[in-house]
Structure formats: C-alpha cells, structure tokens
C-alpha cells in the first residue's frame, strides 16, 4: 500500500517528503488499536498466567468457575437451536408469505437490538418475578424462573433472537423463488424443496447468523445479570463470574475466566471471517 502510494506520488511529481502522511495514518491506527484492544487483551492473558501454568490449571479447576462454564454452555445449547428454528421460520414467513402484521413482525424481531439488555432483563423480572404478573401463579406451582436458569435462558434467548432471521431474510429475498418453483414442477413437496433446494442456498447466511447468536448468547452480561441474582456457583455464567471474582479480589481467577471468554470470541471471530469469505460479504458491525 505504502509503495503503491509512493509510486503514484512520484508519477504525479509530488515531493517524496509528503509520503509521510500515509505512514502517519497507519502509525496512528496501530497505536490506537494497540492501546485500546491489543494491550488490554494481552494483559488478560498475562494476568491469567501470573501464577504460572500450574496456577492457571489450578484456577481452571475452580468449582465455581466450572459451574459458570457449564451454565454458559447451557445458555448456548438452549438459546442457539431455539433462535435458529425461530429465525428460519420467521425469515420464511417474512420473505415468502404475505400476511397482515408482517412489517410489525419485522420490527419486533429488531426490538432486542434497540432495547438495553438491562431493560430486557427487567421486563422478565417484572413478568415472572415474585411481584410480577405471573409471579403468584408460578410460586403456587413451585416453578422458579427468576434467580434460576430458566429466567437466564429467557434473557439469553431474548437478546440473541434477531441474528438468524436478520441474516437469512435478505438471502432468501436474493435467491428468489425460481429454484423452489422449479423443484415443485419436478415433483418435490414443500419439505423436499426446503431440504434439497432452499436450505443449501441459505446455509452460509444461516450459519453466519448462528455464529453471531452463539457469540451473543455466551457473552451476554446485562440481561442475565438482572434476572440471575448472580449467585456464585449457582446462577453465574462466565461474564457474571468474571465480575464477581474480580470484586472478590480473586484477580487471577477472574482473568482466567476472562481469557476463556476471550478464547470463545476469538473462535467466533475466525468462524465469522471464514463465513464472510464464503458468503462473499463485507464485514459488518452489529
């Protein structure tokens, strides 16, 4: 890039000294990214290993950390498949069917993007909590939702809902209905058409949505924090555990958990990049 700019400037007859500008721009960008992202991230790794490898492994064995990992994975296992199924169904309804309230559904799907996660959590508390609308009914049947995993799952599902539908809708609109109609003229029923024709055409955008859903589900803090009560060893996911351990001056343990979360993000990032290459799309910010 620099060489290219230099060459162009030489052709244009501009003095060589002016080519410092691109260098300066690159320098500023690197410095900024370094200060804001790379150094803090690297510090997490350094801190996690501050008691050496054995300390790190010992920390990994922490019972509460393991419980947090288990609960985080549970959140993912519950919310990702549900949101994928819902996302596909909603995407098909919106991209392929005409029905009253279609634009309303489209807006509602976007709601979790625009609502603060804390408010989302609060909504769940107000509905299912002891003083909430359904509170008395749940209590009399001995069903616990708030301060327990079902509430956390609800919060996680809420915040990670839009991704699959949002990725699949434009893809469905882009591929059109020709191939699906062709399949039906060849004798395929709706189900066969879906599995053999539509799904292969939308699988990359769907997987992209699944990756984003997973990242959001595993990393969510605000909404889950409100509904869970953050009880150590019981209702703490990894993000909650990181905060709690840090507050309790278990710094290394906190950084160990943070490193795990960071690792998940890294895997997500790589998958996202791979899928972006597959779907031929530009990197986007959500």
């Amino acid at each position, binding site marked *: 890039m620099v060489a290219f700019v230099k060459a162009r400037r030489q052709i244009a007859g501009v003095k060589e000294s002016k080519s410092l500008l691109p260098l300066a721009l690159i320098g500023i960008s690197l410095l900024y990214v370094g200060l804001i992202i790379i150094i803090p991230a690297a510090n997490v790794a350094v801190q996690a290993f501050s008691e050496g490898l054995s300390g790190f492994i010992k920390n990994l064995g922490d019972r509460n950390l393991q419980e947090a990992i288990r609960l985080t994975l549970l959140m993912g296992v519950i919310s990702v498949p549900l949101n994928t199924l819902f996302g596909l169904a909603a995407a098909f309804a919106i991209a392929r069917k005409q029905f009253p309230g279609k634009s309303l559904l489209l807006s509602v799907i976007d709601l979790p993007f625009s609502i603060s996660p804390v408010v989302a959590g609060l909504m769940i508390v107000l509905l299912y909590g002891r003083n909430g609308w359904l509170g008395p009914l749940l209590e009399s049947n001995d069903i616990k939702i708030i301060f327990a995993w079902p509430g956390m799952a609800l919060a996680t599902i809420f915040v990670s809902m839009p991704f699959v539908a949002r990725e699949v809708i434009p893809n469905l609109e882009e591929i059109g209905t020709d*191939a699906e109609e062709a399949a*039906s*003229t060849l004798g395929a029923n709706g189900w066969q058409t879906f599995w*053999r024709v539509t799904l292969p055409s939308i699988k990359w955008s769907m997987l992209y949505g699944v990756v984003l859903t997973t990242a959001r589900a595993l990393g969510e803090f605000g909404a889950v924090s409100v509904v869970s009560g953050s009880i150590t060893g019981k209702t703490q996911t990894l993000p909650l555990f990181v905060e709690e351990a840090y507050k309790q001056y278990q710094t290394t343990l906190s950084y160990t958990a943070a490193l795990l979360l960071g690792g998940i993000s890294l895997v997500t990032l790589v998958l996202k990049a791979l899928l972006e290459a597959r779907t031929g799309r530009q990197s986007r910010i959500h």
Partner: protein
Amino acid sequence: MPKDKAVGIQVSQVSKQFGSFQAVKDVDLTVETGSLVALLGPSGSGKSTLLRLIAGLEQPDSGRIFLTGRDATNESVRDRQIGFVFQHYALFKHLTVRKNIAFGLELRKHTKEKVRARVEELLELVQLTGLGDRYPSQLSGGQRQRVALARALAVQPQVLLLDEPFGALDAKVRKDLRSWLRKLHDEVHVTTVFVTHDQEEAMEVADQIVVMNHGKVEQIGSPAEIYDNPATPFVMSFIGPVNVLPNSSHIFQAGGLDTPHPEVFLRPHDIEIAIDPIPETVPARIDRIVHLGWEVQAEVRLEDGQVLVAHLPRDRYRDLQLEPEQQVFVRPKQARSFPLNYSI
C-alpha cells in the same frame, strides 16, 4: 365435461387478477397433443401469467384447466406432470449438471442405474455429454438453458412449458437455440407452449401462435395466418412493421379506396414505388433512405404531408436508383382496415 384425448392443454374461461391488475381475462385456448405453440405479446399482456396458470404455479380466480383430458384445475404443481423452463434457468446452483437433471428422477425413487442411464441419455439429447460434472456457474447461458430443458424433460412430462426461454441470452445464441429447440421438438414431440415477446422467434419456432394483449387472446393461428390475416389492429401492428394512415390519405384516392373505418394499415413491403406515373399511383418525394441489409427502407412523403415507410428489395432499389429529394410515384399493393377485411 370430459375432454378429447387428442387435446394436450385446454384452458377454459380462465381469469386471474393481481390486486387491481387484471392479468388474464376469460381466456380460452386449445393446444393439440404434440404441437408447439407460442404465447406472443408485449410485456404485461398476460402471457407469462397464462403459462404459470397452466403449470399450476398460479391459481386461477375462475375458469378451468385441462391437461391431457383430465381436469387439473385443483391439482398441485407437482402432480400435474409438467416440465417448466424459466427465463433465468432456475438451476440448482449447489448441484452438478448431472444432479440437476436427476433431481426429478430421484424424487420418483427410480433405481440408481436407471437414473444414471436416463441422465446420460438426456445429456446427449441436449448435446452436453461430458459436462455432467460441472456446476451451473461453470456453464455459458445457452448451456445452462439446455440443462434446464434436460432437467424438465427428464421426468417425461406430458406438457412442456417454457417462460421466455431465450430472453436472457445474447442474439446469436438465441437464434441458434431456437432452431435447435424446433429440431428437438420434432424429435421428442412433447406438447410444448413457450412464451415470447419476440414475433420473429414465435414465427420461426411455433406451429401455432397465440397473440395476447391486455390479458386477452387477440388471435390464434399459424404464423402465416397471423401475418397474412391479422384479426385485429393490434395483431397487425405487433406482427411486423406497419404504416397506419387515415382513410382520407391521398394514397388511397387514386385507387378509389372507400372504407368507413378511419384507420388503414399498410405494410412497408406492400407499397410499390415507381419513377414514372403509372395508373393508380400518387406523387411523393423521397425523404430518407436507410439500408437494412437485404432490403432498403425508403421514407416517402406524400403531397398531403403524410410520411410512409416503404421496404423494397436491394435489386429493385438499384434498378430505381432512388435518392433523397427525388420525385417518385407510390401505390399501395395491399391495405387492410378493421374489422372488415378488404384488398385493393
């Protein structure tokens, strides 16, 4: 009522509306088994909608559709035993050519050997032997459309429907492919209906042409009938170039033409041009000469200011040595007005 077995497709009083737009209105159409029929019309004339109604891709608001004698109005697309070819091929991009062609066969649970043999047979039929393992993206437009055709023919449909099959191809490939389609039809003999907005294409390929306009059938007939005896002003002006003149025009006075209809239609090649005054001609002046290849177009201005477009063969043009601004004499060889037909 039970329909004649010899009738491949029968459309009876079919109408279809999209919102406030009347796409197809009270259409009746009979297509004989084994014939090749073109639905011809401008865009928005309802020709594609009619084809999709026959296929079952759209449901008619009223009327009935019979395929090979059975009432198919309420049958779903997949039960109609039709083959459909789309303008933009609609191939399955994630499947190879071979898998595309095999798609319908595999749904019918044929044995693997039978499917393989049939696919090879079809690859040969559409002249794509050896390209079976390619993906659609690795083929040219013309090749893709032949794959689409092979895929539709694989399941041995009783009726083959093609929606602007050559519309997305460039001029040269389009010409090759349409004469190829004609030959293929002579081999396979499946009842075929194709949609086109290109009158030349319809003329070249079809046994019968159905001219459509504003959702209605204007005329049904062989290419020659449609050209020589157009039933309506629309057909006259849609099939081939035409001059539309008021019946008061100078050119008709010498010939003693008398018609109550205000508009008279005159094909460019039905205008005779002479250098010297001969009976029944009127004087005119050459405005412009355009060379169209095998014929020459002369734009002539009558004394009343009316401009006519005339076509004459190259040889005739050379004999006459026409030039702009030259004084000539013109005579209509044949003219037409509607609804009464007459000749001079």
